[in-house]
C-alpha cells in the first residue's frame, strides 16, 4: 500500500520520556520587575525573570536596558509535580493579584530541557 509523505513523516516520530519540571509565566505589570518569595507558591520557585529576552533577575540589570510591561518569569519545580500542581499555582498567582497573559509548561524530553534559557 502506498504511503503518503505525511504518513511517512508521522511514522518517524521517536517516543520520548516527558516530565513536567516547571512553568514560564508571562506577567504584565507596570510596577517594574516582579518579586516573589521562595516558598510562596509551594513547589514552584522563581529561577529567573527576563524582559524582551534579556535576564533582569537575579543579578545585574544594565541601566541602559529598555524594558516593556511584559515579563517572562520562570518557575522551576523543587519536587516532582503534576498538572494539578500547575492549576493550584495559577490560582495562587491570580489570587495574589498578578495579571498574566499566558503560561507555558516546561518539560524535559528524555531528561533534556525542552525549553531555552534566557540571555
Amino acid at each position: 500500500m502506498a504511503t503518503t509523505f505525511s504518513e511517512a513523516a508521522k511514522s518517524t516520530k521517536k517516543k520520548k520520556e516527558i516530565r513536567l519540571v516547571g512553568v514560564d509565566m508571562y506577567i504584565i505589570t507596570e510596577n517594574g520587575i516582579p518579586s516573589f518569595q521562595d516558598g510562596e507558591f509551594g513547589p514552584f520557585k522563581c529561577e529567573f525573570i527576563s524582559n524582551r529576552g534579556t535576564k533582569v533577575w537575579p543579578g545585574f540589570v544594565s541601566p541602559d536596558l529598555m524594558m516593556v510591561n511584559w515579563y517572562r518569569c520562570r518557575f522551576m519545580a523543587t519536587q516532582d509535580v503534576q498538572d494539578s500542581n500547575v492549576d493550584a499555582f495559577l490560582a495562587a498567582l491570580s489570587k495574589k493579584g498578578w495579571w498574566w497573559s499566558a503560561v507555558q509548561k516546561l518539560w524535559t524530553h528524555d531528561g533534556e530541557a525542552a525549553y531555552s534559557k534566557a540571555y
Partner: protein
Amino acid sequence: MAQHVVTMLPGEGTGPEICEAVRLVIDASGVDIKWEYEEIGLGCLEQYGTLLPDKTIKNIAKNKVALKGPTTTPIGTGHKSANVTLRKVFDLFANVRPAKLIPVLKRPWDKIDIINFRENTEDSYAAIEHMVSDEVAQCLKVITWPGSYRIADFAFQWARANGRKKVYCVHKANIMKMTDGLFLEAFREAAKKYPEIEIGDVIVDNCCMQLVRNPAQFDCLVLPNLYGDILTDLCAGLVGGLGFAPGANIGDNCSIFEAVHGSAPKYAGMKKVNPSAVLVSGIMMLRWLKETAAADRIEKAMFAVLDERKHVTYDVGGTATTDEYAQAIVDKMHAGK
C-alpha cells in the same frame, strides 16, 4: 588631552593585525583619539572565564564608543556570545549597515547606496523557545511598540542628519498582522516627526527581489531583527561581499563600530587580510564623532589606493600586506594635503 577616548577591541584571529592597520590610518588622518585597549573573545576564557570580561564592559561604559575587530563565538561550549552580550548589556538597539558600491569591485549596477537600520534586540532573537508538545517546537517572535518606534525614530533622525531622502519599512504585515503590523504602525507613527522625508513600506520577499533587480531605488531601510539579519548580508553581497561591509551597533548611551566578517583564524599573523571592513567601520565611527573631515579624507585615500591597484591585498587582486595597504592609504592622505 585627546578630544576623543575610544575603546579598541582588537578581537582575535586576524583582528589584532587588522586593528593595528586601521589605527595607523585613523591616527594619520589628523583626528585626536586616545585609544584604550581592552580584551574580548576566546583569549579571555582562560584568564577571566568569560568571553567578555567585566573590565572591558566598564571601559566601554566609560568611553561610550568602541571600535571592535572580529571575534569568534565557540560553538557548543555554553559560553555566551560576546557580541550578543554587548548588545544586551548596552541595549544596542540599532544595527546600522550601509551598503555602498566600492569602485574597484566591479558590479553589474551603476549605483547602490543603501543604509539598513536593523532592529537589534527583539523579534525571534529574544531566545524564547519551547517544545510545546513532543512534536511541535515554538519560538516567540517578540515585537514591541517602544522597540519598533525607537528604531524607526533613529533611522529617520539619521536620514535627516545625513541628507537622505527616503526611508522604507520592510515587513511581512500582510501575513503577520500583529507583530509586523505593530512594527509598521510604529514606523508610520515615528515618521510623523519627519515630514520632509519620503516614507514607504515594502514586503520583505518583494524587497529581496527588488534589491537584486534594481537596488538603486532604495535609500534607507528599517527592518525587524530577522529580516534585517538576512537582508543586510544580501546587500553586502550586492556590493561585493563582507570584505568591505561596515557595521555599527548603537544604543542610547553607547556605540560599537565593527566589521561584520569573521576572525579568519587560519590567516592570523600572516598580515595578508584586507582591513577595509574595520577601516570603513572606523570611518563610520569618525562621522558619528562628528569628525567628518577626517572620515572623508580616509575614504577618499582608500578609494584612490584601491583604484590604483598597486598596493591592494590579495582579495582584490594585489599582493600587498595588510600593513602595506594601510601605509599606502596614509601616504595617499599625506600626498593629498
